[in-house]
């Protein structure tokens, strides 16, 4: 069973671009879009009770509440369903990539701009591929 997908990015154009690629790559037909991390977390909590997983595409550099803070808070949640995070960032700093690996929920790291091929690759990621078989 394919996971549901949410996309969190403060830029509307980026949300639109990523959504388009998600659909095009056949990952999901209607991913949920959030322009900040708090809205994303609220949505996840509202989904408690379900069993199927949710895949999160997460931007790091966002004003106010950034991607790192999102990951910290997510760790403290006890949700009934599995969550997997793929980071999509415009940063090219190695330090950000290294830091992302310290979070258990993070299974992928993509540097913008995202292409269709990259998006297709997400379905092959460890810990995710089983859902897309």
């Amino acid at each position: 069973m394919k996971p549901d997908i949410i996309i969190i990015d403060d830029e509307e154009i980026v949300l639109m671009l990523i959504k388009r690629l998600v659909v095009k790559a056949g990952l999901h037909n209607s991913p949920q879009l959030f322009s900040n991390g708090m809205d994303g977390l609220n949505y996840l909590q509202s989904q408690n009770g379900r069993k199927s997983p949710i895949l999160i595409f997460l931007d790091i550099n966002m004003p106010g509440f950034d991607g790192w803070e999102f990951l910290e808070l997510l760790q403290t949640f006890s949700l009934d369903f599995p969550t997997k995070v793929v980071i999509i960032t415009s940063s090219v700093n190695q330090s950000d990539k290294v830091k992302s690996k310290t979070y258990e929920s993070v299974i992928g790291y993509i540097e913008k701009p995202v292409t269709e091929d990259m998006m297709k690759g997400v379905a092959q990621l460890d810990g995710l591929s089983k859902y897309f078989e």
Partner: protein
Amino acid sequence: MIKDSQTYSILIIEDNPGDKLLVETYLEESVLIPRITGVGSYREARDLIKENKNFDIILLDLSLPDMRGEELINAVMELAGNIPVVVLTGYSDVEFSRKSVKLGVADYLLKDELTASTLYKSVIYSIERKRIFNELEESQKRYKDLFQLSPIPNWVYDLDTWEFLDVNEAAISAYGYSHNEFLKMKVHDLIPEEDLSDTQKHFEETLQNVPKFSGEFRHIKKNRDIIAVETSSTFLLYNGKPARMMLANDITFKKKYIEAIEIQNKKLKEIAWIQSHVVRAPLARLMGLVNLLSEEEIETDERKTYSKLVMDSATELDKIIRDITEKTEQININKIK
């Protein structure tokens, strides 16, 4: 008696021709080439010495027609400078002769007891002793100059009372206190009040068992300006009292410079962060949009919208680059006073 073969230039100030002849005779007995000049009054002696200071020794009779006694000794001593003066006296007044030594004469000889050998001995000893004394004085002056003329503020303070015992010119001009003001102050007076307790600790460690000590402190000048100094001090005995000589190098400018460099580094790091996180965002968006535009199935209306978004992103990127340039221009290390 073997004659001394060295040349001596001797000035005899003596008004009695008989005494003068006697002294000359004795000198010729022991010295091979005595270059003897004789004058008979203080005034003559004064004019001669003012013109020519190249005498090795002055032999002075104490009763001249125009001056005598203590007054004469003082006047001749002043003229003589570094030349030793031996007093020849007719009185057997030992008390006065003793006093004359205290006034600075090299020796006194009683004419009645004079022999060639006692005169020779006195002349040689006086010249030699004066030479050594002059050398010592010269070397003391040299060391005093090293202290006084050093371009780095330098002072000596009493280890028991912390009072200044001596300060050099550089300290006077750097701190604004006169020499006399310094000598009424203690080292503590240079320390800003809020630093006193910390500095006190350091000072207590710098007792005489610590031969050398250095550290960084803040000092306060007479005009209340605070400067950063690097001090180093060393133990010495000053007129027999335990003291330390301390050098205080003003590093205020150096510190400001380092601070400015640190600020500059911080700003450069900020710029590097902006390059990665802020500049890259619209750029990545641009690339994403261009990818989208290259897709064939896009309709004309959509294409128009995306083209506008491309332009918006380009404009945003332009603004960011201008901001960075402005930030870079704020970094100006030459502005430090």
